[in-house]
């Protein structure tokens, strides 16, 4: 089934392996030094976590929002999912139905 989602990748000339695909998983959070201004995850959350499994506090996680902009390799086109943003204009006109009158691209945030 997955093959069907890769149609669009044919158009690209052999993209290099993304950092996301090749990066290794952090085994020990203490090994990681974050640049100045970046908060480390709260250590106390992981006091009883098994090795290699981590809990992360929200403030730590939110720091990734602006830097992780790469589109996931296996994200199917949103139209295929029926996942298109509601068209606000048509919404207010009580057209009923699924608001398909006009489509706006893929609707990234």
């Amino acid at each position: 089934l997955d093959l069907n989602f890769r149609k669009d990748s044919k158009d690209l000339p052999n993209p290099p392996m993304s950092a996301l695909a090749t990066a290794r998983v952090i085994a020990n959070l203490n090994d990681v030094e974050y640049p100045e201004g970046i908060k480390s995850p709260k250590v106390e959350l992981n006091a009883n976590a098994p090795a290699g499994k981590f809990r992360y506090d929200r403030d730590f996680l939110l720091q990734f929002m602006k830097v992780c902009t790469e589109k996931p390799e296996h994200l199917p086109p949103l139209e295929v999912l029926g996942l298109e943003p509601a068209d606000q204009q048509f919404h207010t006109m009580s057209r009923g139905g699924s608001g398909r009158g006009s489509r706006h691209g893929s609707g990234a945030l």
Partner: protein
Amino acid sequence: QEIDMQAQADEIRTVFSDPTNFNVKHPLYSPWTLWFDSPATKGRNLPQTPISSFPQTPLPQTPGNVAALGWMEDIKRVITFDSVEEFWGLYNHIVAPSHLPQKANYYLFKEGIIPAWEDDANKNGGKWSIQLPKDKNRSNIDKMWLFTMLAAIGETFDPYLTSGEATEPHPQSLVTGVIVSTRPQFYRLSIWTRLAPTGQGDEDDKLRERIEAMGRNFKTSVLGYSESQKLQGPLATEVEFLSHKDSEKKGKAAKKIVI
């Protein structure tokens, strides 16, 4: 010089120090799968549905199950991810709840758990949920859903796990998944749990306390309300817990916990 090269190869580069060439990523406690449905997903064959991705769990053909199977056929699998970096890549390329069509749902569940009562991980559980009028919350819902997802994937929903109360070495989280639903007049956010208090047995009081602590955490830290704040109003509910078994009963038999 060789040592230098070795040192460079071993250097840990996070996405913060090198957004395009990082060499480590932050694993999540569990892998998660995002599912989606809306009126527009009905009858579409692609992509995977819970039925096609878990064909190994055939259910007996009772009328209820047939209905459940039909419903699950309309839910589409968006993606499975297991790192912080992948979560944000997804988040930055997908539609926020305030821009979803009506009658749509995102289901973010631990990998291998179907977003349905019928799943073994859910059948003895229940859900914390809150309903919010749409017009007053259009500007809040995206942040509330984001914070709900972050508490889920960060595994911080269940305070029992991190408070030091747990006596077992690696206690399992009660959370199986989180859902956001858009309806013509309101939004609903839900946190599904593996277990629900039954009012019976030695461990039930402890479980109830743990479930209530989750609800308070949801109301205050995640949604940003004060603990005593009254939320009920036209189209709005308090933060309420209901077991799936009681949800099936609908009417008066249902015993809600309200935070």
